[in-house]
């Protein structure tokens, strides 16, 4: 009766997700964080089953695919200088810090690198949503925030490919690193050449009227790309990401997005729950002080990095700080990094529970800090007496 039980537990997970998510949207909280909490609670009632594990794997694949599909290649090409310089700035401020923290925690080199990635990457989902909710999309700092996010996401996609390659290889040495880099580069190159040369053919191939066949074809492209990546020792996620990029320039892009979105939303939710379920409950409690420490330190470095990017473009002090504060929330990508590695069963990583605690803190507190950045500016950085009440403060209170 194993099938029935796992189906039932999946059902219970879903209804729990619904209620928790419903409450979360009422108080405007990130769904990612809430789903992880649901998973942490549910682990007391039933274990992760083969079914949920499988759906969670699909969750990563679909998420990366959608991410590739909606990736704005146009703005990357148009603003490449700005994106590159601001992105590198942000990288230099935050990635080495993560490595330093990993070293303090006594991790080995692979774990340290992984941890640096987890600390470094801001959640573009949470930040973009908050920007819209807080009515900041027209603010001067917003463009710079989004530029940094593009760079981060791209960097992390490549980073994910490499780190999973390294983990699958087993250990770090020059030969192994070189091999992984070479494989990753070859895989990327293959997709880039494909999208350049076969653009028209791909456009024709995916132009299928029949709804069912259309979905099956798209799914096959996604899963085949993910499988191919996995076959040569890279992350499945990166295969899906490149498939998304490949299809993002077709005329069917919108239709593909509509068709895959339900799959993605369902499987990603299960992925977060599964991740939450794998966080050791009692162990996580003792990690909270370290989590808070890391959160505070890494938030400072994000705010400072963002502040200097803003200063470079002569934004006002307020705008600079808003820019910095907007980079604090971490979310889906940190979880993906920790989750993908953790699914590799021959390498048990202590990083995972800590990532869980860290992402919960930064997703929840980060979006609050984003809202209240003006309060910080007022109380810590400006002399009192300026009376202008910005709009963001009002809508934040509703």
């Amino acid at each position: 009766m194993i099938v029935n039980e796992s189906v039932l537990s999946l059902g219970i997970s879903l209804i729990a997700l619904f209620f928790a998510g419903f409450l979360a949207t009422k108080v405007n909280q990130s769904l990612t964080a809430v789903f992880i909490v649901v998973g942490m609670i549910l682990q007391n009632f039933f274990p992760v089953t083969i079914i949920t594990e499988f759906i969670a794997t699909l969750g990563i694949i679909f998420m990366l695919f959608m991410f590739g599909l909606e990736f704005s290649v146009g703005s990357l090409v148009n603003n490449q200088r700005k994106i590159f310089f601001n992105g590198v700035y942000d990288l230099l401020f935050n990635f080495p810090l993560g490595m330093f923290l990993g070293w303090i925690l006594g991790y080995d080199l692979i774990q340290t690198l992984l941890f640096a990635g987890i600390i470094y990457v801001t959640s573009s989902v949470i930040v973009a949503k908050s920007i819209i909710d807080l009515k900041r999309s027209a603010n001067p700092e917003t463009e710079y925030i989004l530029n940094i996010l593009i760079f981060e996401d791209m960097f992390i996609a490549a980073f994910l490919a490499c780190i999973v390659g390294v983990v699958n290889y087993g250990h770090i040495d020059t030969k192994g690193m070189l091999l992984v880099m070479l494989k990753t580069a070859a895989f990327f190159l293959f997709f880039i050449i494909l999208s350049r040369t076969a653009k028209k053919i791909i456009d024709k191939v995916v132009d299928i009227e029949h709804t069912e066949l259309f979905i099956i074809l798209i799914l096959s492209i996604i899963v085949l790309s993910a499988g191919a990546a996995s076959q040569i020792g890279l992350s499945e996620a990166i295969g899906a990401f490149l498939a998304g990029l490949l299809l993002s320039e077709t005329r069917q892009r919108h239709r593909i997005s509509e068709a895959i979105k339900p799959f993605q939303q369902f499987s990603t939710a299960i992925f977060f729950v599964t991740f939450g379920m794998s966080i050791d409950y009692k162990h996580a409690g003792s990690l909270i002080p370290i989590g808070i420490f890391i959160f505070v330190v890494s938030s400072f470095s994000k705010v400072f990095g963002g502040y200097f990017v803003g200063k470079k473009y002569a934004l006002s002090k307020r705008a600079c700080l808003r820019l910095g504060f907007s980079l604090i929330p971490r979310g889906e990508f940190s979880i993906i990094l920790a989750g993908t590695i953790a699914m590799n069963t021959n390498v048990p990583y202590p990083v995972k529970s800590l990532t869980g605690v860290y992402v919960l803190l930064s997703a929840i507190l980060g979006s609050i800090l984003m809202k209240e950045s003006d309060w910080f500016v007022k109380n810590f950085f400006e002399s009192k007496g300026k009376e202008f009440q910005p709009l963001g403060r009002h809508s934040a209170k509703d």
Partner: protein
Amino acid sequence: MSEIKESELPGIGKKFTLELDSGDKLVVVIHSSGEREVFKFIKDNDEPASVTTLADEEARQIGAILSGTYFQPVIEEAQKLTMKNATMEWIKIAPDSALANKRIEELDIRKKTGVSITTIIRGESVIPNPHSGEIIKPQDTIIIIGGNDQIKNFISTFEIKHRLENDRQ
């Protein structure tokens, strides 16, 4: 004409910035969802003083109004100038009207009053520059043009009771 700056907001949509003569800035953000937001930034301030959110349909209506498709004050002025000494009248033909069921040529309107019939509106159809053989029917609306005196003359000659409000006023 002011320059409109266009920039991409990846993951959100597109942003258009218009610097006004007053120094204030008007920013329109078109979200990928079709929703539009209009922000106003007071001079030298980097936080919006107001924001208006419009659905796709609402934005189109406002757009039409702003572009002058609904109402154009400047052109109205020009029309008054050229029409200084001439008037157009919309006249509904009653069944008992002296004009009803008569050919235009047999009414001899131009010779008697100086007024010309420019258009006959019959139900859904419009007959511009009607032929002199055209018969005016009850329930038609005719549009006539002439000097103010000529129009007065026309109205008294044919005992018109049903003058329509001029659309333009």
